[in-house]
C-alpha cells in the first residue's frame, strides 16, 4: 500500500475496484480495523483505529460496522436466525431474536430462519449474511466481493437488496468488487493498482 489517502463521507456509497492482487482486500481490512497499517492512520466514525488495541477495534466494529463477505462466512453450526442474532448478542441487545427475525423477513427469508447454512443456496446464504450485516444498524457497511460467488441473476437481486437497505437506514457503504455494473451503482469509484489508489470520481 503506497501513499493511500482518502475520506469517505457519511451515507456515501463507494466502490473499490482493481485487478486481483492490487491490494483491495488489504485496504478493506485496514478500513475495518481487521488489520493495522505499519505506518499511517485510519479513522473510523471519528475514532483513530491505529490508537485502539485489538479489543477496542473489535468493540468499535460491534457497535458501528457491518460486514458482508465473498464466501458468506456464516457460522455452520448456527441457524440462519442465530447467525443474524450474533452481532446483536455481541452488542448485548436484549431484543436480539425479534430484531433478527424482522431483518430476515426484510431479506425475504422469514420462512428459512431455522435452516442451517448448508441447507441454504448460495443466494440465500448471502441474503442471511446481509441481514447479519444490517441488523445492528451499522454506521458503515463493508462488503468484500458480495456477488463474487453468485450467478448473474442472483447477484443482481442481491445488489438491489443492498441498495435498498442502504437507502432505508442511511448507512455508509464501502464495497470491494470486480463487478463493473455494481461499481457503477455507487456514488464514487476508487481504483486500486499495485498498492496505489486513484480516485476515479463519480462513475459515468
Amino acid at each position, binding site marked *: 500500500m503506497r501513499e493511500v489517502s482518502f475520506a469517505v463521507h457519511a451515507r456515501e456509497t463507494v466502490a473499490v475496484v482493481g485487478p486481483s492482487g492490487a491490494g483491495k*482486500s488489504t485496504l*478493506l*481490512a485496514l478500513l*475495518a480495523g*481487521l*488489520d493495522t497499517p505499519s505506518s499511517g492512520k485510519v479513522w473510523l466514525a471519528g475514532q483513530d483505529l491505529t490508537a485502539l488495541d*485489538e*479489543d477496542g477495534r*473489535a*468493540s*468499535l*466494529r*460491534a*457497535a458501528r*460496522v457491518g*460486514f458482508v*463477505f*465473498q464466501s458468506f*462466512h456464516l*457460522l455452520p*453450526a*448456527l*441457524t440462519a436466525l*442465530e447467525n443474524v442474532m*450474533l*452481532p446483536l*448478542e*455481541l*452488542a*448485548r441487545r436484549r431484543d436480539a431474536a425479534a430484531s433478527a427475525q424482522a431483518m430476515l423477513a426484510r431479506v425475504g427469508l422469514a420462512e428459512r430462519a431455522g435452516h442451517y447454512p*448448508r*441447507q441454504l443456496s448460495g443466494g440465500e446464504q448471502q441474503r442471511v449474511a446481509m441481514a*447479519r450485516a444490517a441488523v445492528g444498524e451499522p454506521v458503515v457497511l463493508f462488503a*468484500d466481493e458480495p456477488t463474487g460467488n453468485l450467478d448473474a441473476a442472483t447477484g443482481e437481486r442481491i445488489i438491489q437488496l443492498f441498495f435498498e437497505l442502504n437507502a432505508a437506514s442511511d448507512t455508509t457503504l464501502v464495497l470491494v468488487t470486480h463487478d463493473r455494473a455494481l461499481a457503477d451503482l455507487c456514488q464514487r469509484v476508487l481504483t486500486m493498482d499495485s498498492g496505489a489508489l486513484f480516485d476515479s470520481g463519480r462513475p459515468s
Partner: protein
Amino acid sequence: MQLLRMALRALRREWRSGELAILLAALSVAVAALTGVGFLVDRIGRALQAQASEVLAADARLESAETLAPQWAQQAQTLGLQTARLTTLLSVVFHDEQSQLANVRAASSGYPLRGALKIAAQPFAAGATTHELPATGECWPDSRLAAALGAQVGTILNVGALPLRVSRILISRPDQGSAFVEFAPALLINSADLAATRLLQPASRVEYALLLAGKRQALADFHRTFEAQQRAGERWADVSDASPQIGDAARRAGRFLSLASLVAVLLCAVAVAMSARGYLARHLDAVALMKTLGARRRFVLGVTVLQLLLLALAATLIGGALGWMMQSWLLRALAGFLRTDLPPAGWAPVLIGLVVAVAMLAGFALPSLLQLTRVPALRVLRRDVGPPPAALWLALLPALLAIVAVVYGTLNEWTLSLWFVAALAVMIVFLALGGALLVWFAGLTRRSVALTLRHGLANLARRRASSVAQIVAFGLGVLLLLVLSILRRDLINDWRTSLPPGAPNYFFVNIPVEQHEQFRAALLAQGASPERMLPMVRGRLIAINGAAVQRSGRRLADREQNLTWSNELGDDNRIIAGRWWRAEDAAKPLVSLASEFQESLGLKLGDRLRFDIAGELLEVKVASFRKVRWDSFRPNFFIVFPPGLLDGAAGSFMTSARYEPRAPGDLAALVQRFPSVSIFNIGDLLAQVRAVIDKAVTAVQSVFVFTLLAGLAVLWAAVQASRDERRYETAIMRALGAGRGMLMRSALSEFAAIGLLAGMLSASGAALGGYLLARQLDLHYRFNWPIWFSGVFGTLLVVSGSGYLATRPTLNQSPRTVLN
C-alpha cells in the same frame, strides 16, 4: 509405486500446511503413552515375577517320583535356561542314640536358582546369605533338625549309609514355602553324596525335581514342549503352585497392570478416533478435487490408506521413542522405592504400539475412509454435497472389531474380554444418553444466564452432536481413569490389610487331639495370639461321581490331602457357589471345596466325592465352593466337612499364631513340653510375600501415573479436534466485533460445562464400574465421596484448562483471514 509416491507427496504437502501435525501429534502421544505403560508393565511385571520366583528357588520346576528323563535337562540347556537338580526323600537321620525323621534334600550346584540360602553357626540364629552348598562329606541340618538331634557344627550325622559332618546350620531356604506336607525338618546335602547314602531304593518315596530359570520366552517354549511330551507322573510347577499367597498377589497385580495398559490403549483409541475423524473431514475437499481431476475410486482409496499407514508408522517411531524415555524417567524417579534392579525393557511394547496404532486407525478411520471415496466430484462445485451416509453397522463394526481385538490381545481371556467390551459399550451408551440429556438441559437454561455463559451454553446446545461426542470422549477417558484409581486404592488397601503387622508368623501342626486345649493355653500364656484351631485328618480322594480318580499328574488329586471340618467360615473365606453349613447340616455327608480344587478337577455343585480316610470310605456331596485368601496365613484347607461327620477321626490339630518368643529358651520350652508338635516359622515367607506386595504396589502406582498421562493426551487430542472449527469461528466473530475476553469467557464456559457434565457422568459411571470390576478381582468395594468429587472437579479443571490452552492460540488468529 505411483500410489506410494502420491501418498508421500500428499503427506509432505499436508505437513507443510500444518494439517498433518495435529493427527501425527495425537497419534504419537497416544503411542507414547501406550508404549510407556507397556514398557513399565513389562519391566515391573518381570521384576515382580523374579521376586515371586524365589519361593520356588527357580522360575519353574519339573517334578516326578521317577528319575526325570535326561532329555529335559538337555532341552533346557538348548533353550538357554539355567538348571539345577534337587532330589528330596524322607529318611531317618541318626546322631548317636537320637534319631529324627528328616526331609533329606540333595542339591546340585546352582541351587537355588532364585533367592538365596541363609546359614549360621547356631540353630535359630539370624543367619547370613550364602551362595554355596554343603561340600561333599558335609551337611546342613535346619534349626529344627539340629535342635531335635542336639547337633552342633562339627557333629557327625548318619544319613543312610553315609556319615556326614555338620558344617553349618541351615537357617532358611527360599523354597521352604508353606507346603505343610513337609512336616519333617530338612537336611541339605550335596547331590554328589546322594548315591553313597544308598537311600535311593526302589521302595523309597523320592521326589526328583529339575529347577529351571531363564527368559520368559524360553520357559514358555520349554513348557509347551513339556506339555506335548510329558510322561505319566511328571509335573510342572510354577509360582502359583508353590505359594498361593505370592501367586495371588502377583496374579492380581498382573491383572491390574494389564487392565491399566488396556485403559491406556482405550484412551489412545479415543484420541486417535477424534483426530482421525477431524483429519478425514478436512480431506473431503482434497478427495473431491482428485476425483474431478480424473482419479478413480480405488486410487483415491489406495492413496489415503497408504497415507494413514505411513502416518501410523511415523507415530509409532516417535511415540515409541517418547514412551521409552518417559518410562525410564519415571523409573529413575521411582528408583528409591524399588529394591532390586529392573530387567531391561523389551521390544514388545513398540510392536504392540504399532499394531494398536494401525488397528485403531483402521477401526476408527476406515468407515470415514470408505465414505471419503464416495465423495461426489460435485463437491468441488457445491460444498454442501457430502458422501452418502454409511450404514450404521459399517461405521461401528470395524471400531468394534478393533476394540475387541485390542482388549483380547491385552487380557488374553475371552470371557473377561467380552465382559470388558460389553461394559465399555454400556459406558458409552450411558455417557451419550446422559450427555444428550444434559446438553438439552444446558440449551434450556441458556436464556436465563449471563451473556458469555449463555454463549458458551448456546454453542454447546447448537453443536449438539459434537458436544455429545466430546462429552463421551472426555467422559470415557475420565471414567476409565477413575475406575482404575478406585481399583488401585482398593487393591492396595486390600494388600495392606491382608498382611497386617500382626499377621501370623508361626504354624503349629501335629498338635495331639488330647493336648490341643493345653497347647492353646500355653501359646496364650507366652503372649502369642493363636488363630482358629482346626482338626486335621489325612485322606485321599478316590472317586468322583462313582468313577475312580486317575493318577494323571493332576496335582491335587495325586496325593493325600489334609481334611478338616469346621463350623466357622472365617472372613478369609468367601462362598462363591452353594452355601456354607447351617445348623441342620451337622454330620450330613457334605463337603465344601476351595476354588483351586474345583478348577483343578473341574467339579460342580452336587458332585459326589469318595474319600479314603485311613481305610474307611466316605462319600460326600459337594455343597459349596470357597475362595480362600491364602495370604491371611490362617489355617485353611482345600477340603472342609461339616462338623459332626468325622469328629472321632481327628488325628491332630493345627493352628497359626503371631508369636514373638520373649526369651531365647521359650520356643525350646514349648518344643519340649509338646514334643510331637511341628513348628514352622514362616517369618521369612511373610517377608517374601511383603516384598512381592511392596513391588506390586509400586508397579500399580507408577503404571497409574503413566495412565493418567495417557488420559491427558486424550483430552488434548479431543480439544485439538475442534481447533480448526474454533479458529474459523473466532475469526468471523472477531470480524463481527467480539472482543478477545468475550470469546475466551465464552469458550471457557463451554469447556467448563462440558467438563462438569463429563465429570458428573464419569464419576457416577466409575463408581458403578469400580463396583463391578472389584468383584472380578475379588476386592471389597466401598463408595468413596472424595473420589467422586475429585472426579467431577478434576475433570472440570482439566477440561477447562485444556480448553483454555487450546483456545488461546485461536484468539490470536487475525480476523483478516475472513477476507481471503
